[in-house]
């Protein structure tokens, strides 16, 4: 029982990190129909900014997170304007190639400036100490991550289901041409949701640095995992992404706890099974 609860809390924390990063990708893929493999690269950029701010400039953790999110969004604006806009509506293969190209460039440039070593983001005192939650002690940071995930999920749900922007967003997802004709400025909707997606990737990259360490190959190493999570959850669905992250986080963490020598074997076996059973993901829309 002890082990089960331990695994469950760790899986929950890991799943939430996956969720914060992947929900942005899910938005871009569901809304803009862009397979953005460079999503992890943005999370990595944020990790580097946060590491630089917190470790080299000595700023606080909260400030570092804020700077990382803003900085990453600023970096992403010209990329969206000049590169992504050209591949909206292109075949998937074209999008995959373009975004892999962007990923490779980001990796090369990052390594040129920061070197190939691992970067840490120092945690504040409050988050680095262990907390007793009854059946075991857990790092406060993990609770923070779980809370972040819950806030992101709730916030996005509110944004999409309860605000006027959310209505426009859903209308654009369902039929871009028609909502354009009805006066929704779809270009603005696209730009804003792209920025939100990148911002969430940045947040996930920074708070998840304990689980997915920041280094130049970050973008490539976890690219597959992010893509898998989104397609398992179903692009564009928040609830689907939550379920997918929890299920895959559980499979991955359990596999690592009980049979560490098998590595990612169970993760990918589960993915094949799930995709075969639910070809559109858990809660994906029929296209």
């Amino acid at each position: 029982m002890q082990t089960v609860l331990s695994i469950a809390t760790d899986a929950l924390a890991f799943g939430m990190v996956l969720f914060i990063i992947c929900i942005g990708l899910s938005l871009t893929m569901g809304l803009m129909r862009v397979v953005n493999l460079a999503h992890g690269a943005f999370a990595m950029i944020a990790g580097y900014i946060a590491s630089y701010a917190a470790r080299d400039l000595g700023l606080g953790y909260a400030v570092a997170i804020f700077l990382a999110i803003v900085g990453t969004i600023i970096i992403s604006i010209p990329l969206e304007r000049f590169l992504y806009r050209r591949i909206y509506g292109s075949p998937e293969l074209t999008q995959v190639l373009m975004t892999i190209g962007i990923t490779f460039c980001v990796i090369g440039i990052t390594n040129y400036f920061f070197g190939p070593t691992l970067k840490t983001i120092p945690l504040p005192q409050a988050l680095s100490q262990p907390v007793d939650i009854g059946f075991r002690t857990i790092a406060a940071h993990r609770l923070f991550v779980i809370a972040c995930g819950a806030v992101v999920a709730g916030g996005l749900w509110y944004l999409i289901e309860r605000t006027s922007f959310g209505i426009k967003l859903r209308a654009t997802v369902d039929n871009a041409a028609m909502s354009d004709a009805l006066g929704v400025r779809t270009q603005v909707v696209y730009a804003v949701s792209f920025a939100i997606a990148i911002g969430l990737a940045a947040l996930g990259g920074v708070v998840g640095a304990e689980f997915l360490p920041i280094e130049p190959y970050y973008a490539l190493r976890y690219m597959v995992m992010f893509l898998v999570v989104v397609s398992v959850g179903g692009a564009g669905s928040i609830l689907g992404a939550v379920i997918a992250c929890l299920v895959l986080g559980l499979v991955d963490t359990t596999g690592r706890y009980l049979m560490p020598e098998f590595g990612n074997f169970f993760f990918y076996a589960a993915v094949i099974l799930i995709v075969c059973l639910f070809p559109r993901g858990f809660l994906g829309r029929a296209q």
Partner: protein
Amino acid sequence: MQLTAQAGTVSAAPRAKSLWWRDVIGIVSIIALGAAGYWLFPDNLALLTRIIAVALLVLSIDLIVGYCGVATLGQAALFGAGAYAAGIACVNGVTEPMTLLAIGAAAGAAAGLVMGTIMLRAHGLAQLVLSIAIVQLFHEAANKASAITGGSDGLAGLMVSPLFGIFEFDLWGKTAYIMGLALLLIVFVALKFIVASPFGMLCRGIKQDPVRIRAMGAFVFPVLLKMFAISGAVAGMGGALAAISTQVVGLDSVSFELSANALVMLVLGGLGTLYGALIGTVIFMGFEHVVSAINPFHWMTMVGALLIAVVLAAPGGLSSLVEKVSGSRGGKA
């Protein structure tokens, strides 16, 4: 009705003839380039053999992506299946190189059947993800079964007996290179016939409109599965060639990175033409050899920039640029 049909055959005949000439010129130039490589870079024959092995992999991706329209990022699973099958057979006493190539082809085809059966259940993004998951599973399996595959140390110590009992596989890799070149030519000519056959035509039809092909009475799934098997055989032969020439099979031969790189080579050269696959492989690996010797990270930046440039400027790949410049477009061959 009859008249138009006749007109069609009449107009088709000269075009087929010109294409036939083009293919002869193409094959002769492959032989010429191969021979030139042999004389110009006698110290780099190992690299050239590696290029040939990867060219076979890229050709096999072209069969699936370029001719059938099934996006895959997991083709290295088939390449690795061939490499490991040949390697394991060799360690266990089957050392005749031709037999090893046949074993590689058979293992690749079998892996292709498995992969096709799984991948063809899904469409679009899910299909792409399945292909990635499959190659990662193969990778983990090869890593785990270290008793048979050598795990992360790789499968070393392949002692291949001389080709036809005469030509030894020497340190300079001359025999391996010439065997590889001959293999590439045979496979290339065979694939030319396959993609020009009614079966190849059907595949291209499926790529353009599967619903319509189904409405015309053809079965889509078996046709695509057949192409997966052929593609697997080609990739498996590439893997076996790599195993024979380097005498080592490493985990990198079943990696996602190899699959992604091979797809990049194909797109660089041009999808849906067999020449594009060869051009892309030679250019990509040649550049990689030069640049990554200086700094592997510069190489990543360059590949990235190159990819973006190709997508933006030449969506059909370099071979389409060549065709545009020469102006002699006779339909996509």
